[in-house]
């Protein structure tokens, strides 16, 4: 399994590097903003910019999912790898593990930074204690759902369906979060959505001719 994950990482190194770079940029922007505002920092102000940034990140991860599946299908990677002592489920699992790892590379440093900064520069207006967890978990699920959309739509020989299908489905997710807000309700919805996407992806990937 480690070999398969390593192969996925090496083949999609660009996305991992992109995650690291993006995380670094966001941390720098965040720190400079907080240090500028000092103890007057209103953390609620930071929630609004999260949405457009999240959309960009979601589209990026959706593209990663599409890229992983589309290149596999076109280069017939799985057709070759599955002749080795590897099952298709393992190939897909390694792919998803790489996707999760890339998302975590982006999110974990950000969440850690935000948590530290909130403790250092406490807002004058008391904040809801679980806000960081709610936002970060919902953001993770949104990004992961977009990635799963990419995986599902990317396993398609046509270029139109992966591009527009993924784009449309990703755009549906954002208004959903705006309407419902961050919290366990949206998290439950996203978990159900992700489960459905993963089951369908697994079923498609394991049953189509390679």
């Amino acid at each position, binding site marked *: 399994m480690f*070999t*398969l994950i390593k192969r996925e990482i090496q083949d999609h190194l660009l996305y991992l590097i992109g995650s690291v770079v993006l995380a670094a940029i966001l941390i720098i922007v965040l720190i400079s903003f907080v240090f500028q505002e000092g103890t007057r920092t209103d953390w609620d102000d930071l929630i609004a910019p999260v949405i457009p940034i999240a959309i960009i990140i979601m589209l990026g991860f959706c593209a990663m999912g599409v890229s992983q599946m589309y290149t596999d299908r076109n280069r*017939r990677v799985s057709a070759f790898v*599955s*002749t080795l*002592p590897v*099952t298709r489920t393992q190939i897909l699992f390694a792919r998803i593990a790489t996707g999760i790892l890339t998302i975590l590379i982006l999110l974990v440093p950000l969440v850690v930074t935000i948590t530290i900064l909130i403790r250092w520069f406490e807002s004058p207006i008391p904040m809801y204690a679980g806000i960081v967890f709610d936002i970060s978990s919902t953001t993770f699920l949104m990004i992961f759902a977009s990635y799963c959309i990419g995986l599902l739509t990317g396993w398609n020989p046509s270029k139109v369906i992966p591009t527009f299908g993924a784009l449309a489905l990703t755009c549906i997710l954002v208004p959903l979060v705006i309407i419902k807000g961050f919290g366990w309700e949206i998290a439950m919805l996203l978990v159900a959505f992700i489960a459905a996407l993963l089951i369908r992806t697994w079923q498609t990937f394991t049953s189509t*001719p390679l």
Partner: protein
Amino acid sequence: MNDEVIGVENLVKYFDGRCVLDGIHLSIPKGCIYGLLGRNGAGKTTMIRILLGLEPATRGQTSLLGVESTNLPTKVRGRIGTVAEGHNLIQNYRVGRLIKLCKDLSLQWNDEFFSHLIETFRLPTDRRVRELSVGMRAQLNLALAMATDPELLILDDPTLGLDTVARRQFLELAIEIIQKQGRTILFSSHILSDVERIADRVGILAAGKLVVDCPLEQLKQRVKKLRVIFAGSAPTNLYLTEIINQQIDGREMALTVANWNEQKRALLETFKPSSCIDVPMSLEDIFIECTRPIGASVNGG
């Protein structure tokens, strides 16, 4: 003890409503070198892909090493070496990286043998797979498949794209492997001389059916081509079963019959032919006769 390494039961495959494989039954025992023959589009690659679990069957069951093809666990896959038609290697990888990937994923790897093969084939490890010639890709694929010391080797047109020297090297290697280790090989090929050289059992696919499935020697004995000359005009119906091909030209008749035996000879004698000569047939002649639109089945042994 069940010695069946490859099992195919009533295999049917349709592509867009077109029947490619029509009720194939096949059983290949351990240690057998099975040559699968057929014209282009006869269904050889489809059958191999179904066996490997790369393609779902419309109906029927296939098994490798006693396990259903659709559900091959990694342990069983590790005992099978494969060379796919067209040598579907990962094109953008460097040869060295591809070798490392295969080595890391394989359950066993014979480094000494693999190095010997790489040296024999003179394969460059620093070049990308797509930069290799078709022949070199074929050699690399063969080397990768053989390095795992497979119990079962499935080769789909393995010598396609190889030059004469490389083809000879491969065939000798295949013979060496089978002799040394008693492994089972299923290979499809268009080059009949290759099959004749290494296979001990052959199958011929024609119009989706396995029209021939028997040991090579038996096939040569069972399929008979006769040149029969009659005193008058040659009869149009000889009442013989399993006629593969029959051509009449005045008093002369060229007749190819499957499963030739004494009963059939006796039946032919009742027409009182003035002469009946056996025409020697090579595997190529048999193949051409069997793959004509109407053919009888030659099964046994």
